[in-house]
């Protein structure tokens, strides 16, 4: 009985994961779930904070200690003042329980007035006051974005660049990985080393020469200047090659005996069998191109060609940073890639599961 249970629970801590009783969880299960839940908190928590912060307006953002949910302070209209005053409730001292409007505040002190008696200014410390607030989402952070830019144009640019660059990269890299994994030819090791060597060249290092090359080829200021250099990343060849090595040669031999051309073998056998690795690479490529910043910044100077990341940074002039809009735009830039991942991660799951059988 115990055997059949342990046979169905495999994994590195094989026999420990078999529950002692049929349905009760073992302590290692508790530790595992605990670790995973901590992981969820740590991985998602900061992003949740980002999203919530993006709904706060500038004044709320500057406040310390920060509040979890976006609040907006209620205000009261007091005759004699142009703008409504922020409303507070007094929680200590003589005026306890009364609602007052605050006229000014600095460091630990506030100057308030009773609505009934607007001429008398009362000085209190801020710990005697509690702001009257309601949860309010400053959606104008988002709506202003659309008014300020041609957001859809940037979205389209980012999408176009990402999709085309990914397609080129997948095609080119899988062909090369096929050659490097399934063929014996002279110079193979040299090429492999060359590819790995390219891996070590960070963009910053070759920025200037690359810029000159791109200009000479006439790709400056065109989205192609971002797409083509972006497709030349070697990580893909490395990953795909390691994966393709595990495809048994017998399958290819059988196909060759059936007079299939190499291209057909590539297209009909290698690519489908490499689907999980290709899916992973696709996600990575999409992510890299979507998040590209430094290179597009250099190549694209016409605003109609800008990507979302460039637009995101255009909120920063020399001397000021517009946090509310910055946060809102960050969230918007995040969403598409998160959606893509949700969609593609199913394929990884099934892919990895099917390779488990190998």
């Amino acid at each position, binding site marked *: 009985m115990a055997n059949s249970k342990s046979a169905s629970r495999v994994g590195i801590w*094989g026999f420990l994961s078999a529950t002692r009783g049929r349905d009760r969880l073992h302590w290692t299960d508790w530790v595992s779930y605990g670790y995973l839940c901590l992981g969820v908190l740590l991985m998602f928590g900061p992003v949740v904070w980002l999203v919530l912060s993006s709904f706060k307006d500038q004044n709320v953002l500057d406040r310390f200690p920060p509040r979890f949910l976006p609040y907006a302070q209620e205000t009261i209209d007091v005759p004699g003042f142009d703008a409504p005053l922020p409303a507070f409730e007094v929680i200590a001292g003589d005026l306890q329980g009364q609602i007052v409007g605050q006229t000014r505040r600095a460091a630990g002190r506030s100057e308030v007035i009773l609505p009934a008696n607007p001429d008398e200014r009362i000085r209190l410390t801020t710990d005697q006051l509690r702001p009257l607030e309601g949860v309010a989402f400053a959606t104008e952070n988002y709506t202003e974005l659309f008014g300020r830019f041609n957001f859809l144009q940037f979205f389209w640019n980012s999408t176009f660049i990402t999709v085309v660059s990914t397609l080129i990269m997948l095609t080119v890299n899988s062909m090369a990985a096929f050659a490097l994994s399934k063929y014996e030819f002279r110079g193979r090791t040299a090429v492999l080393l060359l590819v790995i060597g390219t891996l070590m060249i960070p963009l910053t290092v070759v920025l200037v020469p690359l810029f000159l090359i791109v200009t000479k080829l006439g790709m400056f200021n065109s989205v192609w200047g971002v797409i083509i250099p972006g497709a030349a990343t070697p990580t893909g060849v490395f990953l795909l090659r390691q994966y393709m090595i595990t495809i048994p040669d017998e399958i290819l031999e059988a196909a060759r005996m059936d007079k299939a051309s190499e291209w057909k073998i590539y297209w009909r056998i290698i690519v489908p069998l490499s689907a999980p690795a290709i899916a992973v690479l696709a996600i990575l490529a999409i992510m890299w191109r979507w998040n590209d910043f430094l290179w597009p910044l250099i190549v694209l100077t016409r605003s109609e060609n800008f990507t979302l990341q460039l637009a995101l940074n255009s909120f920063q002039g020399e001397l000021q940073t517009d946090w509310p809009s910055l946060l809102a735009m960050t969230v918007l830039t995040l969403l598409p890639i998160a959606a893509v991942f949700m969609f593609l991660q199913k394929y990884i799951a099934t892919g990895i599961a099917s390779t488990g059988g190998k």
Partner: protein
Amino acid sequence: MLAIITPIMRIIEVPMSALQRILGMKRIAWVFLAPNLILFGVFAFLPVILNMFYSVTGGDNVLLSARPNVGMRNFAAFADCGNFLDPNSCREDKFWRAIWNTSWFVTLQVGIMVAFSLLTAIILNRDIRARGFFRSVFFFPVLLSPVVVALIWKWILQREGVLNAFLDWTGIGGVNWLVDAQWAFGWSVFISVWAHMGFYTLILLAGLQAIPRDVYEAATMDRASPWRTFRRITLPLLAPTMLVVFVLALIKGVQTFDEVYAFTGGGPGTATTLIIQYIYERGFAGTPRLFGFAAAASLLVAVVLVLLTLVQLWANRRNVDG
């Protein structure tokens, strides 16, 4: 989608078959390699060659033709040190500080990240519910752009940020994290691990899942202890994947720039200045733009990376498939 691609593939097959007949089985591989090689050649290698020319020139002009040749002067400037262990005694003190910082950074970051990735992969490999969900959760930060990652954590860690608010509330008291050299460095390592761990977890998970089940069953039959199973069976079988992970993590670690730069800007002082930031500042952000220095430093970095990778590959030569 398949309906569009299939005819295209059929069309390509015609010239490809022809080429196959002409070139034969051995050389057709080059045809498959060609597009990749051309792309890399033009956009990855040519710049490196040009970079080498830049490294022996001086001045602040962008166009290579307008730059004066200064021979090894740039490299000599880097080597001009009283005591290599004390950056203060060097002419290019910032360069050497960056080297030290990067060395520590990479050691800590790669070590911690691979350890946690392995742990997470092991846990995810167990028979747990909602595995897909947890896997996505750990991978999620990998999707974020480095600037976003830096922004999120800067937001949390600033003097009046939510972490300090929490610590004040619990009575421990907040710390001005980003103004203290040690803490700033530690947090840089942390955010880098946070942002990249999921990627390596996925790779290790794939590696773990590729280990056939019967191996474990055999171990269970033999009543092997879990630690023994891990050491004698899992680790060796995982070795090729671990190699991939270490090589990639090391290379990416040395190349860390965007997220730390956006996070601390290299500060306080030069506490979190990494080598790529040094190169970037010398060649782009600084005034005047010293492309020669940047190119020379970048060549040195590339050489070190190549050496490190070769050492790793040689030490694991059994696992590099020939």
